[in-house]
């Protein structure tokens, strides 16, 4: 299975439910730096009043055997002084309820690599599953599945009828995989961003819309840009976002120790280069097509340490 840690977590949850296990699901959607915030999130998931550590521990123990799925755990910390309170509180609750709850958590790989190194995070978990990037065939199949559901005539031809695509489309999907680093969500977004709507030809009489078509244009990949020419502060900004996840200008200022105005300029510039995108929720994240080149560049510059990424050690 390729990519999608959220899909993986849901699949695990479904499997447990089918086996009549009690399952709770939590998604840490935004940065939660303090222990109090994490305790509140846990209390909400447990459907109890927010309270101190003891309240949450009691609530978990009262539930009896329960599986707790926690998605996007990398949002439990912000890489700044005082930014680990949320993570510490979570790990504290987790290790004190290991006989009462089965914890399944998901992490962004760059955050995991950082925390595993400095926090010995891997010692808190008995098993670790690294989701491998999707293959070209998996991406092709997935995108074709998506296309079946929309009223556009853009199914890549499959004259062989083997569920794949014709040979002349293969390089496109190969490139798509390269740009998305095998991440299914990123590949889908890239695909959708690549499509421009062509209105249906007006040959239909009677006002029918017919089947419109889509012209597919692969956007210019940021890897074609010379990232080595970025100023040091912008490189630090990229590294901070790769390691922390989406950041607002205030959070970036705190993480990189610059003024908020400067942080905003950094974010604006990186967005203008096509390296970042606005998440729409006040934060900025690495743009879909920039994932692979930015990570490789940062690892090669030793700004980020992620074992196994091309360009690193």
């Amino acid at each position, binding site marked *: 299975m390729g990519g999608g840690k959220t899909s993986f977590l849901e699949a695990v949850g479904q499997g447990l439910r089918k086996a009549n296990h009690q399952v709770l699901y939590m998604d840490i959607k935004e940065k939660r730096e303090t222990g109090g915030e994490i305790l509140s999130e846990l209390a909400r998931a447990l459907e109890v009043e927010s309270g101190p550590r003891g309240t949450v521990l009691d609530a978990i123990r009262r539930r009896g055997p329960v599986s707790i799925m926690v998605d996007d755990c990398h949002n439990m910390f912000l*890489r*700044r*002084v*005082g*930014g*680990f309170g949320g993570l510490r509180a979570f790990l504290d609750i987790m290790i004190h309820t290991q006989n009462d709850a089965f914890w399944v958590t998901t992490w962004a790989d760059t955050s995991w*690599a*950082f925390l595993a*190194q*400095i926090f010995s995070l891997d010692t808190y978990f008995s098993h670790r599953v690294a989701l491998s990037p999707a293959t070209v065939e998996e991406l092709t199949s997935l995108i074709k599945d998506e296309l079946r559901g929309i009223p556009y005539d853009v199914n890549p031809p499959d004259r062989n009828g083997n569920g794949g695509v014709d040979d002349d489309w293969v390089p496109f999907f190969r490139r798509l995989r390269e740009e998305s680093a095998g991440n299914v969500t990123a590949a889908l977004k890239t695909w959708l961003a690549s499509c421009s709507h062509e209105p249906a030809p007006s040959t239909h009489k009677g006002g029918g819309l017919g089947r419109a078509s889509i012209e597919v244009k692969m956007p210019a990949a940021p890897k074609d840009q010379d990232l*080595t020419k970025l100023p040091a502060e912008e490189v*630090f900004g990229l*590294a*901070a976002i790769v390691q922390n996840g989406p950041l607002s200008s205030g959070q970036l200022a705190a*993480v*990189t*120790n610059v003024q908020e105005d400067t942080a905003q300029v950094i974010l604006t510039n990186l967005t203008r280069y096509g390296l970042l995108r606005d998440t729409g929720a006040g934060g900025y994240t690495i743009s879909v097509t920039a994932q692979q080149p930015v990570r490789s560049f940062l690892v*090669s*510059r*030793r*700004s980020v*340490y992620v074992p196994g990424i091309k360009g690193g*050690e």
Partner: protein
Amino acid sequence: MEALRALGGSEIITALGQSLAVILATALLIKLIHIAAEQYISRFTARAIVVRNRVELVKVLLYLFTGFVVIRLLLAARADAVLAVVGGGAVVAGLAARELLANIFAGVFIFFERPFSVGDRIQVGPYYGEVDNISLRATTLVTPEDSRVSVPNSMVFSEGSLSANAGDLEAMVVIEFYFAHSIDISEIRQVLWEAAVTSKYFYAKRPVEILVEETPVATAFYVRAFVADIRQEFPFAADVTARAKERLKGIDPLYPEDVWAGAPGLPFSVGSGSSRRSPQGRNRLDSQRILEP
């Protein structure tokens, strides 16, 4: 000039001209190699030290080759004449340039013995800095104040040298803090640890350690962490110090009150902040108690 002509001046002048041309061509070639290497390094930072060391090796080989060619040219012109012209002056110059020759021989040994290489942070006598260039005569260091110091190669042998990173791009940085005995050690350790691991210069591949030492006048903390590039040593120390101090500023008393900077017999200047620990100091720390973060 008359004597030179009598000895076969045109041959010697031609040989000298050819030698000069060879020397200039070598200098130009070395310059071009430098430019090409720096361009390559700007794209592939991680290979900086390897490339710079290869360049230095190529330079030495070119020097030796050029010297060999020049000697051949001069001897081919007319050995006895060249020796007659050069010989007398050479004795005087040799005596005057005894130091220079010592430096050159030391330079040759540096190239073969490799006690340090370009890109290393080293200490030679009172000088500390990044090795920028190793020539046959001197080793150029760039100090933390961004000054260039030309250290004669003979000094490397007479004074000895200490390399902080021994050929690696990454390097350990030790930052010292001195606080009042009354402070909460676990709180300070946590803040210093967080200040180190959250620094934008911190290299997460290597471990970070906070060491604590009780001294008669203060509780000393040593942050031992790595930077990805040794050139970030001082920005890292400054960054960690600034953010740790910002976080700790509410604690009172934070610093020892009954001692003063520069007091005779004290092992350090008391007060706030941090300082780079020299490699000698780092060895001293190895025997001390290590507290896990």
